[in-house]
């Protein structure tokens, strides 16, 4: 663990040297306080912003948060509300890039848009403007650990990173405390204990599949992203890296060919064969899984932490005593750990258009978001207007749940947060959910170290990498289902290697080395 910290510090130190080199204006910082009028801009400024809309809280001009921004900064936001958060949003951005009609700021979900267009020159390198954005600079200096993930292979940073809201993506193990207690069972801490608990539950409830989880049919290893780290290995992912960085050996390892991965698959195969997990576990849709969880056909799952409330509400209507609770993570096999994968991950922020007619105003506007005042106002709002203090605790007015907070005030909706105080959301959670957060946070494993890639390297990943991944997905699935005997594991490892894992891995090693070398 300590070594991990040292290495990441080294990486970040070198990265920061690269950054410092990119800063063109080494003069004294510009004024960081608002102008004489008390607003961020003296005169009104119009800035266009393209955001993906969420249908439950579509953008409204008269939201508190929109008015607050105008009041504080004197900026008239021209919001382009795109009614799609998925790939269609990407397409809309693509055509606007191709036609040159790009909004001053784009608010993306995930890094895909930045990675795709950053190096083409669509977005400005924010490191070039740090003199004009002192608040951002200050935050950056204190958060290099975090900001490095948003960086590009060319040493530039094309995004103003957001921080704080990723907590919403946290995932945990969950179990039906009432069912366990009724049958005198304790939550398992190791995979052996897990197996015996599940067997016991199956005996007691033969028509159940005690442990169920939903998955992405086209990417079955996505589920393993949550499980594998507790087994001492990792599953590949386009967002967190296809290779696991081993802090001990300082090498990149391909998870799906490791022994620990094999042990994990063997374990899940046993679960599958004994019908402790549903036969369609690799492709189970959210709908079916939800029905099984609420209908007590399953008692254990791994999913978003918010599911605690999601299931308890309808579950209790149907089964008195229904009690879904946080379950401490399970150590997998002999090489595993009882800590849980880093799941509170998310990449949001502002992408400033490099050819904006008033780029200086745009970056100055982005800078405002890094002030403590902006953070406070965009997370909580103002006392009396959006929240009141009850028993020494802040409570939102007229907004019992997060979606109400968003719908009513516009707080924490796309485009309106950068430095977010997650306590604002937590204040609306049920006591169970709050307790789950408290217990889950200390158990986080560190994030994987995934370097940024040049376009040439990206091409190799797209071709060789995609072939390797496709084969791995196929074979891992078949091993788990028993379509292929585990005795052929060695053969499979060779097959994957023949497809070019080494070439694929070299790209990672190279990209990491480059960032380290930048300091020499």
């Amino acid at each position, binding site marked *: 663990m300590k070594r991990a910290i040292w290495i990441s510090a080294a990486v970040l130190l070198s990265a920061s040297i690269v950054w410092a080199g990119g800063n063109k204006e080494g003069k004294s910082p510009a004024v960081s306080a608002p102008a004489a009028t008390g607003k961020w801009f003296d005169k009104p400024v119009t800035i266009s912003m393209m955001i993906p809309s969420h249908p439950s809280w579509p953008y409204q001009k008269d939201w508190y948060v929109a008015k607050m921004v105008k009041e504080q900064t004197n900026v008239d936001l021209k919001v382009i509300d795109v009614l799609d958060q998925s790939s269609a949003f*990407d397409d809309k951005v*693509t055509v606007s*890039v*191709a036609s*040159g009609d790009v909004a001053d700021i784009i608010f993306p979900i995930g890094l*895909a848009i930045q*990675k*795709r*267009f950053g190096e*083409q*020159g*669509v977005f400005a390198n924010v490191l070039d403007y740090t003199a004009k954005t002192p608040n951002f600079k200050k935050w950056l200096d204190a958060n290099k650990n975090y900001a490095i993930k948003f960086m590009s292979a060319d040493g530039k940073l094309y995004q103003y990173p957001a921080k704080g809201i990723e907590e919403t993506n946290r995932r945990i193990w969950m179990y039906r405390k009432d069912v366990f207690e009724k049958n005198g069972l304790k939550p398992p801490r190791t995979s052996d204990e897990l197996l015996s608990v599940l067997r016991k539950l199956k005996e007691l409830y033969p028509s159940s*599949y005690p442990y169920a989880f939903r998955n992405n*049919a*086209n990417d*079955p290893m996505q589920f393993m992203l949550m499980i594998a780290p507790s087994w001492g290995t990792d599953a590949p992912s*386009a967002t967190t890296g296809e290779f696991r960085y081993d802090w001990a050996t300082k090498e990149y390892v391909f998870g799906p060919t490791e022994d620990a991965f094999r042990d994990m698959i063997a374990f899940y195969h046993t679960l599958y064969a004994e019908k402790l997990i*549903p*036969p*369609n576990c*690799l*492709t189970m*849709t959210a*709908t*079916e899984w939800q*029905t*099984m969880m609420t209908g007590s*056909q399953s008692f254990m799952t791994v999913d978003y932490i918010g599911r605690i409330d999601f299931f308890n509400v309808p579950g209790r209507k149907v089964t008195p005593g229904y009690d879904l609770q946080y379950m401490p993570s399970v150590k997998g096999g002999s090489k595993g750990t009882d800590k849980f994968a880093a799941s509170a991950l998310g990449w949001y922020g502002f992408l400033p258009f490099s050819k904006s007619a008033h780029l200086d105003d745009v970056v100055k506007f982005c800078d405002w978001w890094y002030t403590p005042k902006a953070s406070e106002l965009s997370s909580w709002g103002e006392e009396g207007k959006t929240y009141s203090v009850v028993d020494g605790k802040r409570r939102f007015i007229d907004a019992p749940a997060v979606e109400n907070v968003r719908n009513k005030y516009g707080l924490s909706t796309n485009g309106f947060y950068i430095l977010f105080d997650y306590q604002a959301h937590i204040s609306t959670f049920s006591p169970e959910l709050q307790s789950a957060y408290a217990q889950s946070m200390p158990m986080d494993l560190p994030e994987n170290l995934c370097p940024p890639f040049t376009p040439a390297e*990206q091409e190799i*990943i*797209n*071709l060789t*990498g*995609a*072939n390797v991944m*496709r084969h791995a*997905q*196929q074979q*891992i*699935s*078949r091993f788990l*289902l028993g*379509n292929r005997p585990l005795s052929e594991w060695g053969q499979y490892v060779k097959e994957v290697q023949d*497809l070019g894992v080494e070439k694929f891995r070299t790209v990672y090693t190279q990209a990491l080395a480059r960032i380290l070398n930048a300091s020499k």
Partner: protein
Amino acid sequence: MTAASAHGVPGGPAHPLLRRIRKDRYLLLLLLPCVAFYVLFRYLPIWGILISFKDYKPFVGFSGSPWVGLKHYRNFFSVPEAWPLVRNTFLLGLYSILWSFPTPILFALVLNEVRDVRFKKTVQTITYMPHFLSMVIVTGMVISFLSPVRGPLNGLLKSLGRPEINFFADPKYFRTIYIASGVWQDTGWGAIIYLAALSGINPELYESAVIDGANKMRQIVSITLPMLIPTITMLLLLRVGNVLDVGFEKVYLLQNPVIYETADVLSTYVYRQGIRGAQYSFASAIGTFNSVVSLVILLLANFASRRLGETSLW
């Protein structure tokens, strides 16, 4: 005014081509809006085909992006799965034609024989409705229906004492699932055009056939089918030309890695590649390859059709 003659109006164009244009001027006028449409909306953007020969970057633009020749095509063929993908795409398209093409015709023929107009109309209205369901809904229903945990089909198997089948864990089921759901969804809708064609057949033809003693089957074979042949041929040609056009969405929603053997096709492969980073040029190359093969297939089919004495596309 006399019928058009080769001389035309005195003082008219002498050149044969110009004379023909003048003679057909109204027909050309009728054609004009359509041609304008094609030029504006289909041919102006057609430079997009060349994207596959470049490393296209949208922001930099077409002229700014570098030429790479056949690089993307070579990359595609170097993929180990190139052949199985094309094979899967082709087979799905072929089976699709074999099963989904005749069924609407059959359906229309049977429906046409119904006397009771209300029954006929009701049946037609109900059976075309699945066409309106989006792929997400249809595939969701199919997956639900076939689920080994809660699906009714497996429920039936279990009650008959047989073990459940995990339909999406075995490559051999995929094609049947794909084709069967396609037949269900599109038969009613596909019959519409044939019903329209059938409605144009003169009832007197049937009357005289009946007088000659022909039974139902004879009538269908010697009157109905021959009258439908032009429509059927045209639709078949168009269908054959689209054989590789296996809808991306449906396959993607039904597939998973365990069944890639039969379930992975060109379009889904490209899509999954694209998730890692917009590969416009690569996708464009595969699309162009697809188009060229389809065009060749169509040319062959059209040639065959002309030889058989039937309709030709041109």
